[in-house]
């Protein structure tokens, strides 16, 4: 099957998600300049949009993008060179041009498995983007923007900040990388473990963005989740003895196994309990479970392994009712101990409600609500609403559904909540 038969615009669109991070990462390594690299890669995609519809899509579109971006970078550098007067600048630029010419687009496009971690430019880039000298929100935004290929408006929506604020955040982060000398390399062995934590957190957020997509009409951002998984795989091959890397990868894969059933034919949200479990990807579940087993054998438990264990229990249950909810509640309790968070408490409350009934769950949810930290968190209100509904307290449930609706921007989720609200009123 040839890509030539595809609509060129669709190919460019898909390719942008898949390849722009790779191309940008390679160019940043050589240029040491985020903006120049991004501009060159953008140029390449614009050229693709202009030429592919008439001349056809090349056989290896990814390599074509990297090659074209490289040539655009050389063009831009030469234009600057005319302006450059310093001999030292000229010398540096000549060196950069030589290195640019030496980029092998095919090598840059190999899969992660065949690639030594040392030469994966995206791995270098992720340690730069997740550097502790950058604020956490800047790290996440930069990783999504440069590696995930998300647009600034999309990231702004994910963070619930104005676009201008996010754009400014990106500019400042790139400026600090350049001016403070934040390196573009994988940290030395002794610094690697402590730097890893921040990287895992960013990847986890990318995955969540992939599922909880802020764009509203499309619940699942397949490319983004695939990107998070790919980066986690690369990390896993770099650090095969780090159980939390494997734990995170297992978690991602175990969630991804349910991807097809998370939305209905019109893009509407389908709850875990209503999903067609026969459609879950058995091969992915097997892969996730064996990854988790490998991680658990190292006997250093952590938050990602615990979450993967919870996902694994869901994946192997034949029905929602037959799920081992008591075990899941117990795992959440351990998770709360090592990583205290009201969101984790909320998840635990849901599991307790399933194991011991809605009244038991509601006690925990009301305690979390009294804490006040989750006032603006829609899932607190929708969870409360659901428990109240199951207890037959319809007026209170309706209030809670309305509170959740007010805080939810995601279209499928809004439709789901509105549907529940109508049904309560109709009863």
């Amino acid at each position, binding site marked *: 099957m040839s890509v030539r038969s595809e609509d060129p615009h669709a190919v460019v669109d898909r390719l942008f998600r898949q390849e722009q991070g790779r191309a940008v990462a390679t160019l940043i390594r050589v240029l040491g300049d985020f903006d120049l690299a991004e501009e060159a890669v953008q140029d390449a995609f614009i050229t693709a949009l202009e030429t592919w519809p008439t001349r056809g899509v090349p056989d290896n579109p990814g390599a074509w993008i990297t090659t074209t971006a490289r040539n655009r970078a050389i063009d831009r550098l030469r234009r600057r060179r005319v302006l450059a007067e310093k001999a030292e600048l000229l010398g540096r630029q000549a060196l950069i041009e030589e290195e640019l010419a030496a980029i092998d687009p095919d090598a840059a496009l190999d899969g992660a498995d065949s690639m030594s971690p040392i030469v994966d430019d995206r791995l270098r880039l992720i340690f730069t983007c997740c*550097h502790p000298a950058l604020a956490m929100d800047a790290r996440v935004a930069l990783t999504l923007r440069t590696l995930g290929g998300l647009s600034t408006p999309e990231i702004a929506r994910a963070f619930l900040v104005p676009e201008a604020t996010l754009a400014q955040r990106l500019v400042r982060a790139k400026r600090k990388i350049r*001016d*403070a*000398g934040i*390196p573009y*390399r994988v*940290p030395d062995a002794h610094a690697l473990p402590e730097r890893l934590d921040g990287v895992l957190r960013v990847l986890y957020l990318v995955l969540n963005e992939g599922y909880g997509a802020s764009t509203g009409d499309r619940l699942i951002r397949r490319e983004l989740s695939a990107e998070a998984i790919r980066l986690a795989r690369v990390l896993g091959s770099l650090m095969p003895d780090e159980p939390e890397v494997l734990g995170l990868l297992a978690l991602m894969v175990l969630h991804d196994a349910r991807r097809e059933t998370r939305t209905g034919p019109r893009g509407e949200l389908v709850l875990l309990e209503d999903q067609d479990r026969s459609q879950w990807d058995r091969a992915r579940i097997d892969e996730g479970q064996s990854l988790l087993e490998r991680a658990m054998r190292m006997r250093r438990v952590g938050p990602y392994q615990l979450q993967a264990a919870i996902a694994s229990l869901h994946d192997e249950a034949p029905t929602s009712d037959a799920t081992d909810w008591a075990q899941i509640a117990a795992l959440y309790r351990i998770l709360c101990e090592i990583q205290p968070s009201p969101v984790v408490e909320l998840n635990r409350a849901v599991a307790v409600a399933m194991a011991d009934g809605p009244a038991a769950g509601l006690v925990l949810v009301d305690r979390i609500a009294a804490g006040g930290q989750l006032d603006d968190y829609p899932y607190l209100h929708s969870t409360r609403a659901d428990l109240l509904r199951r207890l037959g307290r319809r007026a209170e449930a309706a209030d809670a559904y309305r509170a959740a609706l007010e805080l939810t921007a995601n279209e499928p989720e809004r439709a789901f909540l509105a549907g529940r609200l109508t049904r309560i009123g109709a009863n």
Partner: protein
Amino acid sequence: MRYLLLIYGQETEEAPPDDVAAASHAAYATFTADIKARGLFQAGEALTPTSTATTVRVVDGETIATDGPFAETKEALGGFYLIEARDLDEAIETAAKIPAAQEGSIEVRPIWELPTDYAMAASGEASAGG
């Protein structure tokens, strides 16, 4: 890149006991020798307490000198190292080895490397004006 490592710590009213002072001197001697051996060291000095500081500004052409540091803070600037490091990672790693990092804080500030002719143009202007 060059980085200025600014050493901030609590100031004490009284001089520390001799053995504490000796241990501190030894720790700094070891650190300084280490970064010299690694080729990172460019300069480094200890500062006298902020009680000896004077802050100067010019208001409407008048020089106003006031007693004390620019800002009264809990942790005061007590010394600095100027180092040449490969990148921020090496600068952070070096800063973490400064003895004061255990109790105080080290601020890592990259040196803004201005073009040499910028500095020359500035001095030329000054002499032309004077």
